[in-house]
């Protein structure tokens, strides 16, 4: 007889949870019943309402009748009972039967504003660590019976709940099945966050670019779902995954849709300019000051030479020195409490910036280039993407230091070739450029007016293409 089919006894369960001091074992001698649960996983009010009060109002001979209520789920599998207790159920042992009653309700963080994806206008609520709160946030915005939720579990030890969400009739089921397959195939003991989960399900593990969008904003996930994409919520993680994803999605923000379309478009174009500045500005400085002085007009040349004349290093070392300093400041600022973080800003900005120039370690113009590209990198709404682009920048600076413009172009070519290869859930990562789809440019490079945004993105390969039939 296997462990699952043994008659489950209280002793067996207590033995299984031996040395778990947080386990509560309550005895009801009048009713000859026992109850086992984790106090911190259950909702105390629900316990009072669903179990303690009804138990107080019945006699021993009436308990059998009470336990026939649907909230008490009979179970004979030891595995099910142990998993139930771990998931916030209370196990009630009466005579030879065992019942599970769901009382899950641990204390959790209230719904707050997202710190990494702050908004100026638009809904301010952000996902929390509780998957059910997150599901509720989505359902509140998407009141449709077509919104389907599939529950899975990941982690051989942790057994974290994962929910796959999609809108039936809009999504291409190939993506849903692929997503479910990839999550089921994960063989790992523990996954603690959806940003970690993403790395187990993405198409290319050895790329610096994020292949799935993760966000803390419910409005963004709702718009992705209605665009025919699949969402994945992981319990105990405030980030929700959406896929398939395109590189250009990381440059859009829900705020674009809350503004007039012309302003939204201008903001979006600004982000692409920021992307170009982040990735090339310092590298171009290095290329020009190392090899191509002839490209600088005469008037500017005097300023540049004066600024560079005291610097004893080649431009590439000078640039790398400052770029590493900026990264140190950023990392230190991110780790420290906000009050001390401000001090870091002052130390970095004034002390290091000005002192480095006065000491003759760097040139003024380089400080401007490095600072501008650092600021530009923070314009990109996704922190994960911003980090990837900043990393790629180092690679271009080094190549520009070796071969000037040629190196820079070699670097850009390598990036383009690399990006062309990438896929997200099997669909091209650089959609709508390749496969080329000009229709989708209206909602990726610009934010077209709503009457123009008629179709769902081609990347989602939906059979239900029409999003709105709005006339001008």
């Amino acid at each position: 007889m296997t462990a699952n089919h043994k008659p489950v006894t209280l002793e067996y369960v207590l033995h299984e949870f031996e040395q778990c001091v947080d386990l509560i074992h309550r005895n009801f001698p009048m009713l000859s019943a026992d109850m086992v649960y984790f106090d911190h996983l259950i909702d105390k009010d629900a316990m009072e309402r669903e179990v303690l009060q009804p138990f107080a109002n019945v006699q021993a001979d009436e308990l059998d009748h009470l336990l026939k209520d649907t909230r008490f789920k009979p179970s004979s599998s030891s595995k099910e009972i142990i998993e139930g207790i771990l998931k916030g159920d209370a196990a009630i042992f009466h005579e030879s039967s065992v019942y599970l009653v769901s009382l899950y309700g641990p204390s959790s963080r209230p719904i707050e504003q997202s710190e990494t994806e702050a908004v100026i206008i638009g809904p301010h609520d952000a996902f929390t660590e509780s998957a059910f709160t997150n599901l509720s946030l989505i359902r509140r915005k998407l009141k449709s019976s077509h919104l389907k939720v599939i529950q899975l579990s990941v982690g051989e030890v942790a057994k974290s709940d994962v929910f796959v969400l999609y809108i039936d009739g809009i999504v291409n089921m190939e993506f849903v099945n692929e997503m479910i397959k990839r999550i089921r195939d994960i063989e790992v003991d523990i996954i603690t966050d959806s940003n970690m989960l993403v790395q187990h399900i993405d198409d290319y593990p050895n790329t610096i670019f994020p292949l799935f969008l993760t966000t803390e904003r419910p409005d963004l996930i709702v718009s992705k779902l209605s665009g025919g994409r699949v969402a994945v919520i992981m319990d105990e993680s405030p980030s929700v995954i959406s896929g398939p994803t395109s590189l250009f999605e990381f440059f859009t923000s829900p705020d674009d849709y809350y503004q007039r379309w012309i302003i939204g478009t201008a903001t979006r174009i600004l982000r692409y300019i920021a992307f170009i500045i982040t990735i090339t500005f310092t590298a171009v400085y290095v290329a020009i000051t190392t090899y191509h002085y002839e490209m600088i007009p005469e008037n500017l040349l005097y300023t540049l030479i004066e600024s560079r004349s005291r610097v004893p290093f080649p431009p590439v070392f000078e640039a790398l020195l400052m770029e590493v300093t900026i990264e140190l400041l950023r990392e230190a600022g991110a780790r420290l409490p906000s009050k001390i973080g401000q001090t870091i800003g002052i130390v970095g900005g004034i002390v290091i910036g000005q002192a480095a120039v006065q000491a003759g370690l760097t040139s003024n113009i380089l400080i401007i280039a490095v600072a501008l590209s650092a600021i530009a990198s923070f314009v990109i709404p996704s922190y994960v993407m911003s980090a990837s682009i900043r990393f790629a920048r180092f690679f271009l600076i080094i190549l520009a230091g070796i071969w000037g413009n040629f190196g820079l172009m070699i670097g850009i070519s390598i990036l383009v070739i690399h990006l062309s290869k990438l896929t997200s859930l099997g669909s091209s990562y650089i959609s709508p450029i390749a496969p080329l789809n000009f229709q989708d440019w209206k909602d990726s490079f610009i934010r077209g007016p709503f009457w123009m945004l008629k179709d769902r993105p081609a990347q989602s390969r939906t059979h239900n293409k029409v999003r709105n039939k709005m006339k001008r």
Partner: protein
Amino acid sequence: MKERLYSTHIALLVFMIQTGVAALSLSRKAAVYFGTNGWLSILILGCVAAINIVLISVVNRLGNGMSVFEIMEKSIPRFIVIPIYLLLAAYLAAIGCLVGKQYIHIFQLIAFPTASPLMLQGCFDVLVLFLVIKGIYNISKAATVFSFLILWMVFLLFAFSNDFEFERMTPFVFKGGRDMLEGAVDMFAAFVGYELILFVMPYADRSKKWMRSVQIGNLMTTLTYFSFVFISFGFFSLGQLKIMIYPLLDMLAYIQLPFVERLENILFSFLLFTVVVTSTMYTWSAGEAVHHVFPKANRNIMALFIVFITFLLSILPDTLYKLELWLKILSYGEAAFSFAFPIFLILLLLIQGRMGVKNRV
């Protein structure tokens, strides 16, 4: 979820294979060989290329999308086909590497007179290898992105609107030129590259649209060349054009912005994108030919081998003059190949069709 080669990709791929370093000297060649109003020759050559593409589309239609290797193997015994494939591979790979080498040489001329060309060439070849091993679908995707990175350069032509003068044009057509036929073949080298689409046929989606895309790609190339050459005929005088090595570069050098000048330096760097695609497609086609000789060999290792051999080959021509001479000879061959090969395939297909009918009877 199998990827397909979409028709828009084919158009941009053809455009990217065709355009290249040859564009830089096209105005000079048009002036030297065709003389006055030499820019008209670009349109003529574009039409010749379009006719050639019609021949390729006949191969596609008759062969019903069959690969060129299948067509050949159906009629010719394998012991004859293998040397043909090897020759084809060597020839295509040589063109691919020399095109890259020419770019490196000109780059050296402009910006890096002291750098080792071997190192630059090595770096370029690694890039080509990096792209070749990604396969044709990813090559076409990368070519699409690259094309957007260089297509914007067409707008630079507006920078010359003030200095373009119709007075430099004359009502005389093709006067003051020499060796027009030889020149036409020489200039045609700037248009070839579309014939590689013969090797791409089995990978394209089966709609009839894609042959039209090849024509669109050729049209894009023709119009781009035409606009540059036409503007340079109105920008420089005929006499000037005849003595400039790379009139396009000289023209671009004229553009000045408040914060940057000598733009030809950076603009020439952008040409790397199209040269990489050209070189990659030739190397990939060579790889396809070799794959049919050694069907069981690993494609990536084969690509590495081809790129390594071509790297060694590219060491031989050590000056730009020698290199351009080599390329001239190869491009004559290529012009002949681009017409003769489709005609040869059409003949094979017609014979196969007749044999098939006979067999059925």
